[in-house]
């Protein structure tokens, strides 16, 4: 940084930036490969629009900001809302107390239905009882498969995380794995812990848990690298989210490890990694379906009195395996960011 006339340049920074961008484009700086131009125009699922009177539904989740998974849930909910002539009010907070306040907020707005995730069921018990008193139907999605009935929810859409973990454990057995490391990106998250516990339950080899700092990718990368070089016997890396699986690919190369990679949850980069064979398989709980069904079910209940699962059984959206054999069928949807 020069000491002479230091700030003038940054005051006009935006102007310079624009000028530079324009100049560079003119100078033929556009990319010949990739980029927006190569992206096909893709629309979301659409099936016309219901002629029923508009209703309002609140979707309150424990999403933390900027997570690819929750983005897909929300897109599913939005698609159902658009089709059913539903006004969707979305709100989220990872803190259970704040999530309860958001549900109370929805009750105060006198919405026609509420869809909630039960990551911390105890904290939401009271406010869900209030919704029942206010005669607002409540459905659950994503987390809380063992709690939704106790809390008096009408129906539930999601995956039993333990069951999903068990399914992955079985799959590891059939792949002939001996030692797996289960990478948890958020310490203390019950759903993630249940997945690893499920894997441990059915996997006949040994399982170890590894915690990484999910908000700092370079540290995720080096921590997995460290684990792989510490324990050369590891032949399977199990991650609990698509971005972490993709990072594990690099760790594997850095550590010179031959371990294979399996993961929970999909995104569009992950489907192409499965296609290329850098990632073996993924357990998909179909988050789009969770969001979609939660909203659609409230519409069905209001307009036709239906409830899925008969109010007794949860509606399971996973675990579905995506691997090289069926990735093609999923890839085009994942590219739109909806699977």
């Amino acid at each position, binding site marked *: 940084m020069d000491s002479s006339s230091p700030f003038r340049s940054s005051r006009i920074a*935006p102007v*310079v930036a624009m000028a530079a961008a324009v100049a560079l484009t003119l100078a033929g700086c556009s990319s010949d490969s*990739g980029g*927006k131009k190569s992206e096909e125009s893709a629309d979301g699922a659409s099936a016309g629009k219901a002629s029923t009177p508009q209703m309002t539904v609140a979707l309150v989740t424990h999403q933390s900001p900027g997570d690819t998974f929750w*983005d897909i849930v929300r897109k599913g909910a939005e698609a159902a809302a658009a089709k059913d002539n539903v006004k969707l009010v979305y709100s989220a907070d990872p803190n259970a107390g704040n999530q309860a306040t958001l549900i109370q907020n929805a009750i105060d707005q006198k919405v026609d239905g509420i869809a909630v995730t039960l990551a911390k069921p105890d904290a939401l018990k009271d406010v869900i009882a209030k919704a029942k008193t206010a005669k607002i139907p409540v459905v659950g999605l994503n987390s809380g498969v063992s709690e939704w009935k106790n809390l008096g929810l009408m129906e539930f859409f999601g995956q039993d995380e333990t069951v999903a973990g068990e399914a992955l454990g079985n799959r590891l057995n059939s792949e002939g794995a001996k030692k797996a490391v289960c990478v948890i990106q958020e310490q203390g998250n019950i759903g993630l812990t249940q997945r690893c516990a499920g894997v441990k339950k059915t996997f006949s080899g040994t399982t170890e848990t590894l915690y990484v*700092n999910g908000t700092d990718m370079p540290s995720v990368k080096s921590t997995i690298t460290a684990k792989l070089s510490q324990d050369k016997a590891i032949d399977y890396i199990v991650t609990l989210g698509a*971005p972490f699986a993709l990072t594990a690919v690099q760790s594997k190369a850095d550590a010179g490890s031959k371990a294979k990679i399996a993961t929970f949850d999909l995104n569009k980069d992950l489907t192409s990694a499965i296609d290329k064979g850098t990632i073996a398989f993924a357990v998909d709980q179909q988050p789009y379906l969770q969001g979609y069904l939660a909203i659609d079910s409230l519409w069905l209940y209001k307009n036709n009195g239906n409830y899925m699962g008969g109010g007794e059984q949860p509606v399971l959206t996973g675990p579905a395996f995506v691997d090289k054999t069926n990735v093609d069928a999923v890839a085009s949807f994942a590219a739109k960011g909806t699977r």
Partner: protein
Amino acid sequence: MSMTHHAEPAVTTPPAPGRKESDGRTKQRPLALRLLARPEVGVFLGAVAVYVFFLIAAPPVRDGSSMANILYQSSTIGIMALPVALLMIGGEFDLSAGVAVITSALTASMLSYQLTMNVWVGVVVALLVSLGIGFLNGWMVVRTGLPSFLITLGTFLILQGVNLAVTKLITTNVATDDISDMDGFGQAKKIFASSFDVGGVQVKITIVYWLVFAAIATWVLLRTRYGNWIFAVGGNKESARAVGVPVTFTKISLFMLVGFGAWFVGMHQLFTFNTVQSGEGVGQELIYISAAVIGGCLLTGGAGSAIGPVFGAFMFGMVQQGIVYAGWNPDWFKAFLGVMLLGAVLINLWVQRTATRR
């Protein structure tokens, strides 16, 4: 192995007293004690202690490639800890530094992708955006006289929200699109995210940048007028201004330096991982600040060094990965990290106290 190499620049000779004969009022203290009184020596010893500890506790650490991995982790913290430390010596700090890294990466990625331009266009614009954020932080702090805690807490929240909202608005997803097949990517990857071979060990290029930046920062701090200005504005702003130090320029440029660091680390992340998740980066600012504080920079400003934070960042990387290399029960991960860091800081403090006491 490479540790000992970095150790050397730490021992910069303390300014010569320039006194011929002691007249009895001031006793010449032994060299060892004078060395220990320097802010970076305590953390250097702490880092050595942690290093030796894991060398014994975790056999894989002795391997060259493990050390390269630990240094890589340290470098991604260390490159940001350097400008953060200089800013702290200058009496301010920046809570937006963690998310600013992601802002920069998102800007470069989305601009190139959406306009289908050579990725270098995105890289250059991201630099301007990052410097602009730094300028804005500094300008507001200087103009309002409010504590930088408040100002940068504001920008931290703004950036966190903007990262998410703008990414979603533009890409309709919360992560950016893969730009690895675009023109210029390979080149940029070579510069920001390549690795090279040293005796069969793959070494990440960020380690080189980290050490080079540290050397430059040390030189600037100890040998240039600008370095004096930094100490002066951090020590006492008013008296610095009275003796003709351009306080406004110094403070704003320091914030912009943090912006530069954020850009650099952001580019590294983008070209390593091809895509960026908009929710990342939160919490990293505290790690940068911790590395600087452990490295001997006072929270109140006016004291510190550029080489101290290098060891501070190394300790972070060493402890974080050392626990994994040692194969300890991961449930205790954070607790281990906390105990080790507190221990290191206490050693640091004890060394300083012992050294400055006669």
